[in-house]
């Protein structure tokens, strides 16, 4: 059997593959966080709750309405996005102009509230969700058997992440967004409806988290608590990448997923903390993050 650093190669490649799947989710989540933070100065703790809602809605849609995965891939992000818009209009809008920490505190409370509501109906135990029939085959990669759904999830997440990045960097809409991030007062003077832009951006970011939740439903156990531990990892990833940078969010999301996978083989005890340890390291060497600029 082939070996690398004294570890069986199939095991290593297998964990790297799973790491890539996780990394793709990290990338999507940290991307949404970065966009929201850039425009609104809000660190959205509820991002994990939105992710969970996406997955729960997918499961509920199948359970109660017999809607298959593909329908929920459309509906669940829409619902989560609308919910996000509601949150922005009712609550976050009132916090503009005061210390950004209150945005974090508000969304933290919101997370407890949302999780609590779902928990009161579904408990804490997870439910499995089967991938759609089209993608239920298992591929033999030589070093491992990979459910074809995993490949789809990675490809979809990457496509969406890159698409979002292009949207922000290459289109007029994205130019507005970048201008709003730089100087809200100025683009308002040019006649852009800034409050509406903020609302839609938050809705978009939430929908992105919801979409990641839908994609994750067949991979991770669907449960009311699936989001909150994840969001803290994503926070660390965003700190590593540098808060301002959209590309940084995508790249570090993927990279840290892979590193986590690697850690599961090389030194399992640190696999759940390796991201935080790396964050500490990056902070000592480059406080602004790998892709960030000091403000």
């Amino acid at each position: 059997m082939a070996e690398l650093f004294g570890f069986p190669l199939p095991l290593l490649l297998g964990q790297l593959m799973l790491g890539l799947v996780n990394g793709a989710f990290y990338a999507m989540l940290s991307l949404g966080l970065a966009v929201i933070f850039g425009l609104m100065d809000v660190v959205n703790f509820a991002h994990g709750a939105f992710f969970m809602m996406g997955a729960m809605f997918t499961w509920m849609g199948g359970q109660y309405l017999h809607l298959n995965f593909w329908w929920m891939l459309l509906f669940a992000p829409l619902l989560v996005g609308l919910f996000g818009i509601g949150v922005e209009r009712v609550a976050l809008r009132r916090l503009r102009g005061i210390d950004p920490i209150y945005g974090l505190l508000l969304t933290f409370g919101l997370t407890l509230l949302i999780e609590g509501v779902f928990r009161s109906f579904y408990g804490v135990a997870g439910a499995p969700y089967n991938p759609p029939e089209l993608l239920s085959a298992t591929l033999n990669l030589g070093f491992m058997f990979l459910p074809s759904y995993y490949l789809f999830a990675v490809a979809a997440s990457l496509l969406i992440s890159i698409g979002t990045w292009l949207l922000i960097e290459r289109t007029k809409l994205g130019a507005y967004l970048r201008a709003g991030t730089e100087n809200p007062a100025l683009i308002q003077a040019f006649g852009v409806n800034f409050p509406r832009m903020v609302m839609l951006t938050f809705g978009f970011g939430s929908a992105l988290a919801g979409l990641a939740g839908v994609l994750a439903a067949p991979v991770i156990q669907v449960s009311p608590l699936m989001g909150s531990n994840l969001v803290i990892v994503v926070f660390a990833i965003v700190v590593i990448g540098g808060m301002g940078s959209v590309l940084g969010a995508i790249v570090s999301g993927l990279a840290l997923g892979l590193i986590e996978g690697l850690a599961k083989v090389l030194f399992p005890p640190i696999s759940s903390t390796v991201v935080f340890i790396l964050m500490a390291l990056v902070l000592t060497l480059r406080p602004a993050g790998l892709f960030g600029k000091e403000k």
Partner: protein
Amino acid sequence: MLPRTRLSNILSNGLLWALLGLALIAPWIGLYPVLGMRMMCFALFACAFNLLAGYAGLISFGHAALFGGAGYLTGLALTAWGWPTPLGILTGVVTALLIGLVMGLLAVRRSGIYFSMITLALAQIVYFYALQANFTGGEDGLQGIPRGTLFGLPLQSDRVMYYLVLAVFVASWWFLRRVVHSPFGQVLQAVRENEPRAISLGYRVNRYKLGVFLISAGFAGLAGAMKAVVMGFETLTDVHWSTSGLVILMTLVGGLGTDLGPIVGAILITVLEEKMGTISHFLVKVTGIDWFHQLNDSVSMVIGAIFVLCVLLFRRGIVGEIRARLLLGKFAP
């Protein structure tokens, strides 16, 4: 008529003495001592957090690591090593100081919202360590921590333990207040208000931040260590991020940056947690909706709702709101 600042001072002193008097007689007029001790441990935890958040403007989202980390090491010292109680509590405080040193050194490199995210992430390392390490008992927690004795006093007695905790609490509260009003504390507030100016005045801002982080960590550790001794067990809840959130909420409800706010907040939230069963039964009876039973199981939902309302409508907290109204003269004719 009295000047408003004097009125405010008299009221705040009055509240202080009333609270102290009440605390002294509480075990004899129906307060279950263990609940009282729980309140005081959380109140001290909130006061330690308030020193950092309210006066230095550094909102830590990782204080549970200090609180719970101290609790675990105190528990370990008292059970496995068989150390005497005071030494066990000291072990907890030293642990919190060490965790606080590492956390502080990294976190003070960034300020504002980044500081919160970094402390949160670093606290997760402690959480996962506690989850995996052998001595913590993982999901089961550390059970059967003995209270032991102090100078021959049997701490097994709830009332003796109660007065010990009260004494430690009052002394710590007084010390933390002294820190706020010391030159050191004044510099901290200057840094909070205008960091570039403090730097240009020649203060080594990061050293002050690290200093206050350590003081806060030490007292958070003291609170956690005492709680472990009082309750006789230590579980993962105390190192979980929800506990970091809880202490923020207590401070926020009472009033961030006020002397008495964290105490008021801690008492309110602890009572709420304790009495949630009664409240939910009451709601079921009145409304006839069975779902309200769920509130009892999911206290975090209620905590979350209070959090949201507090941030939206009530950012100054109870004590802060009263003080502001007195000082700004909203009641003036």
